[in-house]
């Protein structure tokens, strides 16, 4: 049963990777990376159940969720404001 989930996740990963490579705007690539992190989390959790030690793998999955969110928000901040130092669009001199 778990193998179906793993196969579906692998295929969806390949599709998201294709979008990240092709994606015309930069937002397509950010979107693909974001959905890729979600799929990685699901993949690791499923694989933890697959090998029978889910408690260890779920910790990694939780940490991936947090790191993926921080990364996505940092990337969006750069793409919106131009650098990481500004606190908002008003404070910048652009």
């Amino acid at each position: 049963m778990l193998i179906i989930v793993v196969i579906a996740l692998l295929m969806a990963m390949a599709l998201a990777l294709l979008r990240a490579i092709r994606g015309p705007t930069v937002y397509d690539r950010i979107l693909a990376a974001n959905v890729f992190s979600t799929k990685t989390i699901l993949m690791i959790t499923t694989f933890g159940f697959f090998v029978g030690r889910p408690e260890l793998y779920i910790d990694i999955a939780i940490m991936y969720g947090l790191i993926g969110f921080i990364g996505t928000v940092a990337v969006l901040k750069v793409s919106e404001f131009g650098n990481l130092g500004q606190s908002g669009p008003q404070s910048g001199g652009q």
Partner: protein
Amino acid sequence: MIAEIINVVLLGLLVITAVAAIRLHDLFAVVMVFGIYSFLAATVFVVLDAVDVAFTEAAVGAGISTILMLATISLVGRWERRPAHRPFLPILVVVVTGGALVYGTLDMPNFGEQSTPVHEHIAPYYLEQSKSDIGIPNVVTSVLASYRGYDTLGELTVIFTAGIGVLGILGIRRRREEKNSEG
């Protein structure tokens, strides 16, 4: 068996990601592809049962290095320039080095073998003597902080220096901007 198939598929995706990162000239897109690359690499490490390496890969690859590369891009601009020279000599060097490395792996012991020097030489000593030598229950901590203490000190020096360098480079522009806005 199934883990091997998953591994092969993930490694294939890794190769595609690496080729895409080379072919793209928009550095912002390359950073995003690298984020995907590090998620894939971490999944490979998890499938290979190297959970601690996967932790490190997630924290360093997907977390801090994405942010550092983005900060660099905000300094150097977003588009890669066309290289001025031909790529044949670098390709020759890379192919020869890669061939030597692949040739080196032929001498490595099989995956998970018990009778390798790593498992026979010094690891049993650490496992048996760390309690009486150091006196703390965690063997990893005693190896890192006492048996290989100078090694760890050197690593920390390198990381500290690298951190100062990164902060220096990334902090220059902000300070200059502040000075410009004041004057």
